[in-house]
């Protein structure tokens, strides 16, 4: 236990000091040391993206980063998305409205990926959204609801996740 290192990490605006083994991943630190279990591990080798969090604003696979690397960093996780009153943000609303989730296991990763993406790309085309969300794997939805949700939540598209309906009948 003597090789533990003390790190300070800010998660969703709240500062934590925690002693971690150098081999512990950021995902494990977030999940098991700090209790942010909304971040999920789907492959632990950097492919599926379920563990995506934002580190200093950049989408990061938390299974590929050690906790000690996040010393002094600002981390954003799915737990920080909703308002303090529990109100879902437009992206979260859009995921629900467009049925962009089924089992929900990959959802936090897609939400964090899309959060960072939309900050830089406020009005993406469907093609661009598909390319961006192709970073992550979803096994349930076939991706269409995710793509529609991200587009609907884009600030340039009105930014309201509640806008439009997910049921477009026969059309796509």
């Amino acid at each position, binding site marked *: 236990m003597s090789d533990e290192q003390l790190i300070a990490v800010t998660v969703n605006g709240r500062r934590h000091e925690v002693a971690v083994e150098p*081999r*512990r991943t950021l995902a494990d630190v977030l*999940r098991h040391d700090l209790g*942010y*279990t*909304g*971040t*999920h591990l*789907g*492959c*632990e*080798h950097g*492919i*599926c993206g*379920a563990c995506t969090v934002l580190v200093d604003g950049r989408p990061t696979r938390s299974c590929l980063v050690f906790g000690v690397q996040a010393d002094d960093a600002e981390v954003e*996780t*799915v*737990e920080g*998305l*909703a308002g303090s009153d*529990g109100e*879902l943000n437009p992206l*979260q609303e859009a*995921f*629900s*409205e467009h*049925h962009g*989730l*089924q*089992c*929900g*296991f*990959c*959802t*936090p990763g897609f*939400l964090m990926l899309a959060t960072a993406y939309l900050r830089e790309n406020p009005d993406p085309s469907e093609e661009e*959204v*598909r*390319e961006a*969300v*192709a*970073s*992550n*794997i*979803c*096994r*349930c*939805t*076939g*991706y*269409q*609801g*995710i*793509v529609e949700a991200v587009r609907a939540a884009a600030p340039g598209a009105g930014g309201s996740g509640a806008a439009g*309906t*997910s*049921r477009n009948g*026969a*059309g*796509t």
Partner: protein
Amino acid sequence: MASEPGAVRATEAGEAAQGGRWVGRPIRRVEDRRHLTGTAAFVDDIARPGLLHAAFVRAPYAAAEITALDVAAAREVPGVRSVLTRDDLGDDVAPLIPLLNRPEFVAVELPLLAGDRVRHVGEPVVLVVAESPHAAEDGAERVRVEYEERGAVASIEAALAGDAPLVHDEAEGNVLLDVAFADHPELDRAMDEAAFVLEAEIDSGRLAALPLEGRGCLAEWDPREERMTLWTSTQVPHVVRTTVAGLLRLPEHRMRVIAPDVGGGFGQKCVVAREEALLCVAARAAGAPVKWIEDRQENLAAGFQGHEQHFGVRAAFDGEGRVQAIDADILCDVGAYSTHPFTCGVEPLMAATEMLGPYAIERYRARTRAVATNKAPMAPYRGVSRPQMVLVMERLLDKAARRLGLDPVEIHHRNFIPRDGFPWTGPTGLVIDEGSYHDSIARCAEALDLPGFRERQRAARADGRLLGMGFSVFAERTGYGSGAFSQRKMAVTPGFEQALARMDPSGGVTISVGTAGHGQGHLTTLAQVAADELGVDPDRIEIRQGDTDATPYGWGTFASRSMVVGGGAVKRAGAALAGRLRELTAHLLEASPDDLELRDGRVVVRGSPEQGMAFEDIARVAYLEVQSLPAGQPPGLEVQEAFDPPGTFSNACHGAEVEVDPETGGVRIERYVVVEDCGVMINPLIVEGQVRGGVAQGIAAALYERLAFSEEGQLQTGSLMDYLVPTAEEIPAIEIHHLETPSRHSETGAKGMGEGGTMGAPACVVNAVTDAVAHLGIEIDHIPITPEDLVVALRTADRTEEKSPA
């Protein structure tokens, strides 16, 4: 078209007469909030005081003798609490022997931990329990196992070779099940007299279901209550309880199984895992909670697999393209063991029973075999044999149509069960209920503008571009009850479902049911069903499932059964509770129950809704003022109902337009259309989500995913770098049209539909790709179609053309 008066008729979605106030509405899911805010609780999110962690030592060889096992060094690793081997299990744990009550079945034990022999890479050999996951893995690394390799069989062909090593000494020729079906007396004559006979060898690759949450469980022994609690990522909590309690020789009332939030299953979690039993053994021995979370490498190597099948078929056709007879030899690679409760019979028996699909074929013969190989065991994976049998039937029709110069749509019409032919009893005794087969393909071809496509295809070919369009039509058997399952002759017969509806003293409604949703949105859809019975908004109804202490015995969620069977039980329970409320209110208001109805959370007099009682006031009497109850009425408001249907068939047609890149062999899906008919839709949002997710897995099977093994049985696709799960770039937007032929066999008119997407997509994609290259003499009869396959086929075709310009 020729529907009799009163016959079930396919209608456009939305105009169904049976839709109630909530049934049929695409409302948002209750489940979403927890997942969107990170407050969901999957197994690995559950914290218990004093929690220990498990890691498995797994076999590195596909077939080997264990000649020495030394765990002493592992016990010395700091933090390691216990190390469990097969010898440590002793007589405290009963053997797990999945059973099928058929004389053709060879029963073999599924060892919880390997004894003196391992039969697949990833087979659990030793369990290490430690204070942290890292210490457990450190301990596992220090376990010394010596192996002496034996010959492995890693394919159907190798397993059936004359001198093949045996996976199990008791399974001669590596065959675990060998069943003959039908054998119509006129079959051979039909083959002889046919206008032509098509022969085909059709293969499908081995797949991982790959739920994004791998398997995992947490077992805790409570010494105070002397009771085991197992939190596990399962689709079948009661089945796990019955099985694991039995293995532990524990009465079932001393075991509780909880399926918390479950991150997908697709069948991989509908059988009992060895690890579930072992964690309970370890927790009981440790006197502390123990958790195991499968990592992705473990999941790919040791998780249950499926879909690896070979069909050798002969099909007799008349001159108009009508199938006269089918003779099929079906081989399923079931891996090293049977799994419980479905056994290795699930794939071969399903394949032979349901092969003919929606086609009016009477002369049929099938031999179907479960072949043991040195690979991880097979369990049902979404679709179970239907993706393969649909591929076979649709390939045969496609080949025949091309040979006769027929339109692919026309050959389907010529072979479907006639519109007035339902219910249709096929040669295996399967009864297919009403569906919209003819209409679905007509609609699909129209949506894809088949004639217009043919023109574009011709023009593109002139430019050296390869476009193709393909279709597949299928019948999706869903919601089968105990009657259907009993024909399979498993040692246990799943099928029914029960629902317990309770109104509490505050007027709140909780309905507990034995299904176990894990992404299907049951908390939403089952509440919609009950809401119509009880005259309240669905958000006033809480659905509970996934906890054996809180739900009536049930069979869980698999085989597209939950909405038909669980939904039927919920509807009946909701109606029964409504009946109790009417009776009680009738007594209190001195009215007749028949004059009362449930509306907006009240029981009111029909026609004068101002007269009535709010649920909370009625409930108050039922619990807190029981002196006002009619004589003989029990206190409380609680009813339990069951449902056990015969089963019902959904149907769909898939159509796709693809482009094949002649340089790279890459396939791009330009358009994908599904015309789906699952009877009454409870929630169209969820139906469409199931279709799209299913199609994505079917496209994955058609073009991307395959568990590859070396001849020695080494898994060569052990990470997601090698096992190619498609992303949003590969899966196209999917256009969905709905038809609605309500089921006579379900309480709601709904038919199950969770697997259809996966069933139809492989055949549709293969037909489309073949259509793009068939003019070069290329026929594709296997999945997945890799770019390499296409490049090789195209170059070979080029050379052939150069040699013999025809």
